[in-house]
């Protein structure tokens, strides 16, 4: 996408007059659409070259490492399902950053919404014990989404009404959220039988959501993809989405145009929080069957990375999640086959992130030699 549209608000400050472009004779600019593919691809290639150099320094043949990574992430049916499974929470937690970003906010509190979504789902599951499974599951997901929406919505409210920086407040709210989870599972909601691993009571086997038919992947994947598509439609194809982009671009101008700025900010935050809360609810309803400290596994933070790599674009979140899911899925193999430290995949992620952010500077500057001059 074009640089000017994709991160509205991130730099609402300091508008500068555009510098005159230095035109090199015989070179034409790539179109914005082509750029959107070529530049990230270039960044990927550069990242992998750098990563290859890193593993070579560590004494391992880069090609063999890449081959194992491919095998671990996509090479077999088991691997591919592993990747899909790891991608599914990221789809939803990424939206927690991506949706508010459309309105110019930088929300990094997905972890808090995620764990509270899980806690609320666990509590609802226990509270509704005895009801038919559909009721329990519906109650769990409503509770999870609502908890996440309230949590991030609160950050949005503070921003809209009191001007509190949402980046800081959402991050701090995450710590509070995690503390709340620990307090509840170790105190009021604790299953007295969970002696050495404090947890809420089990929601009951009948209420667990199984894997999708024929797959070893739970339904969070489908819900995540649908949510990303819905986010795309909302942000790119609706009046509300347009008004959010307007707020992100210039809140004052938006207000003058009659946009209810506070409302837009709070709704975008609440929607993002609801997505992360839903991911937390899946963690309880499809994996653990109860809420406990295992919910704090960094999915919320990983979502921030996904959202930034996807430039906060609903559709782009899907491939980026799969990609990061694949990297995650291949990490264990690198440890076991090459004895590489567990931080190896972090190094790759770090390189990717830095290179992709740096590649932002290339938009509008990549030129190719026009065929006529080339000959």
């Amino acid at each position: 996408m074009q640089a000017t549209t994709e991160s509205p608000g991130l730099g609402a400050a300091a508008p500068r007059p555009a510098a005159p472009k230095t035109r090199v004779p015989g070179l034409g600019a790539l179109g914005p659409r082509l750029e959107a593919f070529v530049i990230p691809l270039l960044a990927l290639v550069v990242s992998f070259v750098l990563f290859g150099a890193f593993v070579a320094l560590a004494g391992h043949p880069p090609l063999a490492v890449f081959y194992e990574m491919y095998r671990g992430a996509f090479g077999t049916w088991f691997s591919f399902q592993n990747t899909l499974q790891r991608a599914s929470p990221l789809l939803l937690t990424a939206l927690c950053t991506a949706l508010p970003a459309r309105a110019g906010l930088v929300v990094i509190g997905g972890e808090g919404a995620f764990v509270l979504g899980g806690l609320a789902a666990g509590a609802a599951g226990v509270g509704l014990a005895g009801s038919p499974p559909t009721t329990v599951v519906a109650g769990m997901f409503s509770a999870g989404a609502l908890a996440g929406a309230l949590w991030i919505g609160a950050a949005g409210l503070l921003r809209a009404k009191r001007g509190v920086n949402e980046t800081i407040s959402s991050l701090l709210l995450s710590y509070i959220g995690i503390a709340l989870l620990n307090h509840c599972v170790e105190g009021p909601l604790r299953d007295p039988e969970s002696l050495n691993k404090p947890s809420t009571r089990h929601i009951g086997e009948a209420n667990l959501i199984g894997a999708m038919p024929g797959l070893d992947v739970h339904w969070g994947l489908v819900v995540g993809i649908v949510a990303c598509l819905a986010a795309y439609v909302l942000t790119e194809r609706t009046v509300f989405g347009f008004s959010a982009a307007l707020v992100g671009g210039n809140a004052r101008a938006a207000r003058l145009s009659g946009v209810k700025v506070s409302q837009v900010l709070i709704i975008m935050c609440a929607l993002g929080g609801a997505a992360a809360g839903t991911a937390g609810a899946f963690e309880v309803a499809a994996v653990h069957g109860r809420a406990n400290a295992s919910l704090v596994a960094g999915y919320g933070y990983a979502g921030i990375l996904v959202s930034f790599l996807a430039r906060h674009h609903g559709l782009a979140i899907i491939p980026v999640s799969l990609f990061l899911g694949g990297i995650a899925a291949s990490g264990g193999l690198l440890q076991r086959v090459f004895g590489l430290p567990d931080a190896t995949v972090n190094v790759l992620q770090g390189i990717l992130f830095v290179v992709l952010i740096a590649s932002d500077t290339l938009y509008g500057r990549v030129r190719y030699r026009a065929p006529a001059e080339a000959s």
Partner: protein
Amino acid sequence: MKRRLVLPARSVPRFSRRIALVALPLLSATHGCSKKDEAPAAPASAAAADGKPAAAAPSDATLTVGFIYVGPKDDYGYNQAHHEGAVAVSKLPGIKIREEEKVPETLDVQKTMESMINLDGAKLLFPTSFGYFDPHILKIAEKYPDVKFFHCGGLYQEGKHPKNVGSYFGYIDEAEYVAGIVAGGTTKSNKLGFIAAKPIPQVLRNINSYTLGARSVNPKVEVTVIFTGDWAMPVKEAEAANSLIDQGADVLTSHVDSPKVVIETAEKRGVFSTGYHANQAQLAPKGYLTGAEWNWEKVYQAYIEKTQAGQMADHLVRGGFSSGFIKLSPYGAAVSDAVKAQAEDAKAKLTAGSLVIYQGPLKDNAGKELIAAGAKKEPTDITLESMNYLVAGVKGTLN
């Protein structure tokens, strides 16, 4: 100047202060997600599928054993203790080990187990973290009935859990009792500090045994406990250590995943320490007195021999000094001969079973009677495993 060359002007606003602000949390985000990203497992039943067994597929004679750790395997703590056991058994004939560290207690560990089974051909798995058991090991064990899963923690229930699963644990509070004797005999201020993760039965039992040991040789000793709230909170652990030292404690110990920070802080502040999980003597050459260590090598070797013989081991395995499940770190230079003698005497009695740690009269730290005079609870007593009290002599509360 240069910047202008690199950044097209219209992108400059996008790199405003805002983005710098974002960059920091994001960096930590990459770090945070590490937990889950790294953990992973990788996959793939490729060994069978693409005919390229790589380093993976074992020959029939070789037994591939997988070890999974929740934290780094060189953490000077819980994970290192298991890793040392794994390295020891890797030297046995016909054994190949595969290890994966920093695997969170989520779907990640399920995928790691499956990956070890499908790709590495593992037939015996030791997923070591307490939280791996339910639901993760239980689920994967049902799916792969030919593979054996042994879990550290003692959660196995006959009739309820799959037959290819077992649990092992050690009465490490016996070693804590002896470490308490050493601490109680060495302290000058009669104040000991205990930094603990969570007030759960396993932890409370260690705190209580440590205190009982210390007070058995020095009744004036008081043990102050601080709970940090989680298993790996290095900053809080350092704060707690400093706070305890400021309050006059001159021996510190801990029950967290990695005692490294506590031991190092104690050494830096010039006070003594006793270790836990693994040997931390090299972190504190001056102040390290002794420590309660696991001896998993012994346990793993027994499981491997059973598996190689084609048998299922006992579902529940436990032991203390007498069965070699636990050991003491070598005594540090600061431990006097008299204290050493007292400690060795207690260790011998615990090994022989003639000394029982929990015996009456025993009161909790609010004065309530726990065990009447003349009564006692052997280490195997099941009620000790739901311990929810701090004994007299401990300063601290459970909430």
